C-alpha cells in the first residue's frame, strides 16, 4: 500500500510518500488513519483533526468508511486551494 501526504500533512509527517503493509484488520480509510497515528508524533499530529483532511483512494475522493487494501494508493491532504 502506497500512502501519500500533501501540503501541511507532508510537513507534519515529514514524508511525502511511504510504502506500508498494515495488518489485515486495517480495512477502511478510518482504520488506516488510526493505524498511521501510531507511526510517531508527526503522524499523530498530522492526522489528529480528521475534519480538516481529505482522502483519495487510487486517485478518487474517498470517505472514512471506504475500503482500503494492499496495492492501493491512499493520499491524505487538506481541502484543495487551486485555481
Amino acid at each position, binding site marked *: 500500500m502506497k500512502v501519500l501526504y500533501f501540503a501541511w500533512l507532508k510537513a507534519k509527517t515529514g514524508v511525502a510518500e511511504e510504502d506500508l503493509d498494515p495488518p489485515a484488520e486495517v480495512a477502511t480509510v478510518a482504520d488506516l488513519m488510526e493505524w498511521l497515528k501510531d507511526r510517531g508524533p508527526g503522524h499523530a499530529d498530522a492526522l489528529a483533526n480528521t475534519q480538516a483532511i481529505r482522502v483519495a483512494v487510487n486517485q478518487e475522493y474517498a470517505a472514512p468508511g471506504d475500503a482500503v487494501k494492499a496495492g492501493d494508493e491512499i493520499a491524505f491532504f487538506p481541502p*484543495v486551494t487551486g485555481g
Partner: protein
Amino acid sequence: MIRVQRSDFDPGAEISALTQGRHDVGALTVFVGLVRDMAGEQRISSMELEHYPGMTEKMLERIEAEARERWALNDTLIVHRYGPLAPGERIVLVACTSTHRAASFEACEFLIDWLKTKAPFWKKEHGPDGDAHWVEARGSDDAAAARWNRKPGDAAE
C-alpha cells in the same frame, strides 16, 4: 484539453488555438487567475503551488467532460500551473468556445468553480519576513461550486 505544467502559458496563443481557422465558434469566454501581492491584509512575496500528479489530471479531465456534457461547446481548455509563482504571474487559464455566449460563460464559470474545489492543488503563501502558511479553503468557493450541483431528477441541460 487539459494541461498541468510548471511553465507559464501565453493566453493569446491559447485563445488563437481555440478559434484559428474555425467558422463555427460564435463565443469565447476565457478566465485567467493570477497571483496577487496581497491576501486580505497580508503581504505576499511569493507562492508555492503543490499538486498531486496523476489525480490532478484525472480530476481536470473529469470536470472538463462534465462541462461538455452539460453545455453545447465547441471546445474547452484548462491550463493550470504548479511550482513557485511570484505576484503578477498567471496561475490558471480556463477557456470555452461555443456557438452562443450564454453557454461559453456558464461553462467557463463552472469549470473554474469546480476546479477550485475538486482539483488537488494547494497554495502556500510566503510573506516578506520569510513567514509561510498554507492557504485555507474558503467557504465562498464551496458555495460557488455548489451552485452547479444537480438535484436528483434534474433533466439534462
